[in-house]
C-alpha cells in the first residue's frame, strides 16, 4: 500500500482505472479467480471498468454472464464450493434485488451451514450512487440492505487506492463481500486533498482529515463533498473526517476515538436515512460514547422518499452547502 497524497493536480489513476488494474493483477496471480457479470467481457462493462480483461485473460475467466442476477450469484456460490474465487459484477445498484435471495440466504450462510468446510471468498462489485442524471433505478445506494446480514461484509471505498485494498482483502476473506463503487467517481480526476495517514488495517476506517471541533463519519462518494465542506469551513471550524471505507462490520473504534477528541458527531451518507448506516453509527455512539458527547448526534442523508427523476436529484442529494450548514448549526 502506497500513501501518495491525492491532490487535484497530481495525475493519479481514476477509480475505474485502479479497479481495472487491481482486477488484472488478481487475475494474473490467482489462477482460481474469475470475473462474472453482464457485459463485462466483450464490452468491458457498461462503465468500461473491466475493459481489456477478457482479451487478456480469456472468456473463461472474464465471463459475460447470462442476464439474470440470481444466476450470477447463485452460480458463483457453486463455484466457490468448487474452490474458485468469483468476483461478480451487478450492472447497477438498482438491479441487485433479484440476487438478494442467493446473497442473503445462501452466500452469507454457506460457511456456517457447511460447519466451516467451505469458505466462500466471493465478491460482488456493485456500481452505486447518483449525481450523474441517471434514469430510474440507476442512481441508488443500497449498502445498508446487506450491512444487516451476518456473514456478509460491505465495503464502500471512496478512492481507487482504497478500492484496491478492499478488493485484495475481500478475495482472501473466506466469506462474501459486497463492494459498492461510486459511479460518479469512476472517471473523476479532481478530488479534494486528503491526509495521507494510512489505515490501521485493511478493514479499518481512515481519518482523512484531522480536526478538533467535530467529527464527520462518512463513506463512499460523498466523502469528497464532506472533505470539500471541511476545507471550506477551516479555519473557523476544524472538522475531523472519518472515511469508514467498510460499513459492515464498522470500525467503531476509530469513530469513538475521534468523538472522544471532538465531542461532536455528524454522520453523512448518500443512501437514504432511515434504518441506514448512519443509524447504526449513531446508536453505537449514543451507547458507548455517550459521556464524550457535547451535543446531539446528527445525521445528514436523504429523507425517506423515492430517488426522484434526474431533474430533481439535486434537491434529493446532500451537497457541500448542506454539510457546511449542518456543521455550523452543530458548532455554533
Amino acid at each position, binding site marked *: 500500500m502506497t500513501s501518495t497524497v491525492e491532490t487535484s493536480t497530481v495525475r493519479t489513476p481514476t477509480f475505474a482505472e485502479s479497479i481495472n488494474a487491481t482486477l488484472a493483477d488478481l487475475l494474473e496471480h490467482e489462477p482460481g479467480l474469475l470475473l462474472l457479470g453482464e457485459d463485462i467481457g*466483450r*464490452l468491458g462493462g457498461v462503465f468500461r471498468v473491466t475493459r481489456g480483461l477478457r482479451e487478456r485473460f480469456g472468456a473463461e475467466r472474464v465471463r459475460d454472464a*447470462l442476464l*439474470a*442476477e440470481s444466476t450470477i450469484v447463485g452460480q458463483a456460490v457453486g463455484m466457490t464450493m468448487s474452490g474458485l474465487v468469483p468476483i461478480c459484477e451487478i450492472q447497477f445498484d438498482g438491479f441487485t434485488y*433479484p440476487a438478494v435471495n442467493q446473497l442473503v440466504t445462501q452466500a452469507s450462510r454457506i460457511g456456517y451451514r457447511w460447519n466451516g468446510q467451505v469458505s466462500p471468498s466471493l465478491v460482488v462489485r456493485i456500481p452505486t450512487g447518483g449525481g450523474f*442524471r441517471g*434514469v430510474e*433505478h440507476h442512481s441508488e445506494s443500497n449498502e445498508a440492505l446487506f450491512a444487516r446480514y451476518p456473514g456478509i461484509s460491505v465495503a464502500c471505498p471512496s478512492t481507487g487506492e482504497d478500492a484496491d485494498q478492499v478488493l485484495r482483502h475481500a478475495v482472501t476473506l473466506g466469506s462474501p463481500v459486497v463492494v459498492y463503487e461510486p459511479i460518479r467517481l469512476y472517471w473523476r480526476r479532481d478530488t479534494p486533498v486528503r491526509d495521507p495517514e494510512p489505515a490501521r488495517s485493511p478493514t479499518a476506517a481512515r481519518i482523512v482529515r484531522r480536526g478538533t471541533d467535530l467529527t464527520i463519519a462518512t463513506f463512499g462518494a460523498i466523502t469528497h463533498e464532506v472533505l470539500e465542506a471541511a476545507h471550506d469551513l477551516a479555519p473557523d471550524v476544524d472538522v475531523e473526517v472519518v472515511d469508514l471505507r467498510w460499513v459492515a462490520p464498522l470500525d467503531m473504534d476509530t469513530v469513538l476515538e475521534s468523538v472522544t477528541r471532538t465531542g461532536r458527531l455528524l454522520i453523512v451518507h448518500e443512501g437514504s436515512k432511515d434504518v441506514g448506516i448512519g443509524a447504526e453509527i449513531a446508536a453505537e455512539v449514543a451507547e458507548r460514547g455517550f459521556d464524550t458527547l457535547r451535543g446531539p448526534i446528527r445525521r445528514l442523508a436523504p429523507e425517506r422518499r423515492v430517488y426522484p*427523476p434526474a431533474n430533481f436529484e439535486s434537491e434529493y442529494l446532500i451537497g457541500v452547502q448542506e454539510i457546511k450548514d449542518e456543521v455550523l448549526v452543530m458548532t455554533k
Partner: protein
Amino acid sequence: MVLKSESEYEYATELHDDTRRSLLRHMLVARGLDEEAHRLQKQGGLILWASGQGHEAAQVGSALAVGPEATVFPTYREHAIALLRGVAPDELLAQWAGRTFCGWDPYRLRFFPYTLVLAAQTLHGVGYSIGQRLQGREDFVVVYVGDGATSEGDMSEALNLAAVESASVLFVCQNNGWAISKPAEEQMRTSVAERARGFGIESVRISGRDPETVFSACSRAAAHIRGERAPYLVEIQVGRIRGHTTTDSQEVYRTRDDIARSVAADPVTSYAARLSGLGVVDTAWLDGVEAEVREMRERLMKEYA
C-alpha cells in the same frame, strides 16, 4: 448457433391498403421521433435514449393487430407503440429528459409505464389480466419483453403463471439478437418460442422485417387468445440498428458486417419502398407523412433542445 425463422416471410394478402398505409405511417413517425431523440440526446436535451430503430415493424405490426382494447405492458423500447397508442411525442421523451418516470396517462391509453427492471413487468401483466378477468372486465394483455430479459427468473415465472391460469396474455418478445453486448445465441440454447411451449404456451417465431407478417401472426395469436382464453407467445426477430442506448458503442463488440446487415435489413425503408412499388402510397402521401414528422420534430426541438 444461428437464429433461424420458423416461418419464412409471408406477405398476408388480405390486408387492406388502409391498414398497410397505417402500418407504414406509424413506422415512419416512430423513426422520425427516434432520429430526433438521438439529436436531442447529443445536444444534452435528453439524458439517454434507447433506440427503437429496426424494431418498428415488430412494434407497429403487433400493436395494430391486437387493437386498442388490449392493455400493453412495455419494456422501455416500445416507442412506436407508445406513439400509436396516443402518447404525445413530448410525453414520450419526458422520462428520457429526467422530468418524470412516466410522461403519459397509462390507464387512458392502456399503455402502461416503461419498466426498467428487466422482466418485472411480465408478472404484472399476467396479474393484471387475472385481475381484470376476476372483475369480469376485458382481460386481454400484451406483455413486451426483450431476448436478454427472458433469462430473468421473473419471465419464466410469468410464463408458468400465464399457462397455469390460462390468462389472456400475448407475450411479444422482440429478439434483436443482443442484450447490450451479449448475443442472443449465448443467452439461450433454443428460442424464446420453444421455451414458451415448454411451459404449455403456444408460440410462433417470425421475422420482424415485414410489418404485415407481424400483423398477420399477431392477429392469429390474438384470435387464439380470445378464442381459447389462453396465452400465446410471438417471438419476433428484429435487427438492432443503433447501439443498445446512446451510451453504448456497439462497434466495440459487433462486427462492422453485422451492423451493416441490420442497417440493410431496415424494416422502415424496405416497407416504404415496397408500398411505393405497389402503388399503395405515392409521393404526395409520403410527403404528407414527412411534413407531419418534420412538424413533430420541430415541436420536440423547441421543448427539449
